[in-house]
């Protein structure tokens, strides 16, 4: 389990991570979602003790990272694909890591096999593609057979087959009862893998909820109704007891009653230019959520200096 308490990181005036408090629990994939620059990578680096927090703390299974006796056997992380020396073979890279944490050396071949790099184990990573680098990074994370895994944008640079493989791997790791914490800036990616969702924007926590609940709350369906006589249409729909709202250029009726609306229009001799069933994508829901954070900040700024920290 990873526990963050009031985790804050400031670079001079700019607050990159702002009082984050949440826990990442075992047995499920927790998606860490936020637009680029929201503070995801900074948070992950602080979890590993690489960046020093300005405030707050992180605990890995109840302990600060620095105090873990063999950290790679407790938590494995993929931060960036290229965190290898270009002139050190994949095998030797893993060997250095294994030796430093007293990890049995047979694990090297096991993880190379797992990520499909056995054939290039003795090759130097400077010739590796981005995807192969990513696989080597995942192998490094898995080396100590840790109970907690953390991946920063793991599908970056992977081909479709690789992406599928990473998704399956994460689900499998969670099914084993491990803690899996994975960041992405793509809601669609998270929708396919995550069971739980932590959303941040501008370093602040925006949501900490199960994926199912997030979908339920945000994936509304509605019918888009376009007509040259919106006023009359609105009355007709209202009379039929259907809630109507103003869309961007047409009317929107929550729900999926497209046939009913079509029939009503025919009954009243209304011309329809468009009648479509739409589903608000999770991507839009996510954008709405994060846009809110931006607005909140702009709003706060109007009332004098913004309160820092939290």
């Amino acid at each position, binding site marked *: 389990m990873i526990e963050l308490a009031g985790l804050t990181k400031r670079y001079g005036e700019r607050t990159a991570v702002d009082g984050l408090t949440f826990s990442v629990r075992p047995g499920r994939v927790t998606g860490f979602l936020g637009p680029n620059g929201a503070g995801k990578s900074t948070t992950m680096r602080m979890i590993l003790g690489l*960046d020093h927090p300005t405030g707050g703390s992180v605990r890995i299974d109840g302990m600060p990272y620095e105090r873990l006796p063999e950290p790679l056997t407790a938590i494995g992380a993929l931060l960036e694909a*290229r965190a290898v020396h270009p*002139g050190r073979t994949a095998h*030797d890279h893993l060997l*250095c890591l294994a*030796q*430093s944490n007293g990890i049995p050396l047979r694990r090297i071949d096991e993880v190379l096999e797992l990520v499909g790099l056995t054939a290039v184990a003795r090759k130097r990573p400077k010739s590796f593609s981005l995807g192969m680098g990513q696989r080597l990074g995942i192998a490094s994370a898995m080396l100590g057979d840790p109970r907690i895994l953390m991946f920063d944008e793991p599908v970056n640079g992977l081909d479709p087959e690789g992406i599928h493989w990473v998704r399956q791997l994460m689900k499998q790791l969670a099914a084993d009862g491990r803690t899996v914490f994975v960041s992405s800036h793509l809601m669609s990616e998270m929708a396919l893998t995550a069971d739980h969702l932590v959303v941040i924007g501008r370093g602040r926590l925006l949501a900490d909820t199960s994926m199912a609940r997030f979908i339920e709350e945000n994936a509304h369906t509605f019918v888009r109704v376009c007509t040259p006589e919106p006023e009359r249409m609105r009355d007709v729909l209202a009379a039929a007891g259907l809630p109507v709202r103003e869309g961007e250029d047409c009317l929107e009726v929550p729900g999926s009653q497209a046939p009913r609306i079509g029939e009503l229009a025919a009954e009243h001799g209304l011309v329809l230019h468009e009648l479509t069933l739409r589903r608000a994508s999770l991507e839009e829901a996510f954008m709405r959520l994060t846009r809110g954070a931006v607005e909140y900040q702009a709003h706060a700024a109007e009332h004098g200096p913004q309160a820092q920290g939290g």
Partner: protein
Amino acid sequence: MDTTTAGRVLRSEWTKITSVRSTVWTLAAAVVVTVALGMLISLLIRNTFDELSTADRITFDPTLTSFAGTSLGQLAMIAFGILVVSGEYSTGLIRASLSAVPRRGLLMAAKLTVATALALAVGTATSFLAFFGGQAMLGDHRTTLGEPGVLRAVFGGGLYMGLIALFAMGATWMLRSPMLSFGVLMPFFFLVSSILANVPATEKLGRYLPDQAGQRVMSVVEADDRPYGPWGGLGIMALWVIAALLGGYLLLKKRDA
């Protein structure tokens, strides 16, 4: 438990250093350049010895002459020091390394220990090879290990090589980027330091620069009026090294990786 951890990290750092070609090549270059250039200059001196001024002949130092290749060979040692440390920073590997060994002081100490041991071993071998090779070229003007001060100078030459590599490591830990480290250290030790030590205006200060002071340990005949002896000179160099390492350590502790 703690000795186990230290032992593991040392072994890991040994693997790191020996599993890349650049470290092997730079160390090999340090040997070849120092020895070959020393022999060449020794040979040239022997052939032109009679043309030297009386003063130069009186203060002729066959030991120091055989170390004439050090000025160039040390650049390979400096490159070794830079590469050992900057290899962590050029690619973000330092994050993987610190994830594995979160105690930063331990990681740094292990890397310095392994790299310095290697530099000292190679440096001492280089020193002896340069001495014997140089003396062989000097013919009648040669000296032997048995002469006073000579053995000290030869061992000192090895220590000098180890210290210059260690200084480069400390400085690189502050500068982090390989480009920046090469850009600062190479011109400094190749040009700037010897200019400062030879231009009358800066001569007095220049003698206290790490390489200028440290190289004193390799001379047997006192040719100028330096205010420090061979060990004093090496001591001054050691102070520079300690300062560089301390700076590197404090920044490593303080900075985000």
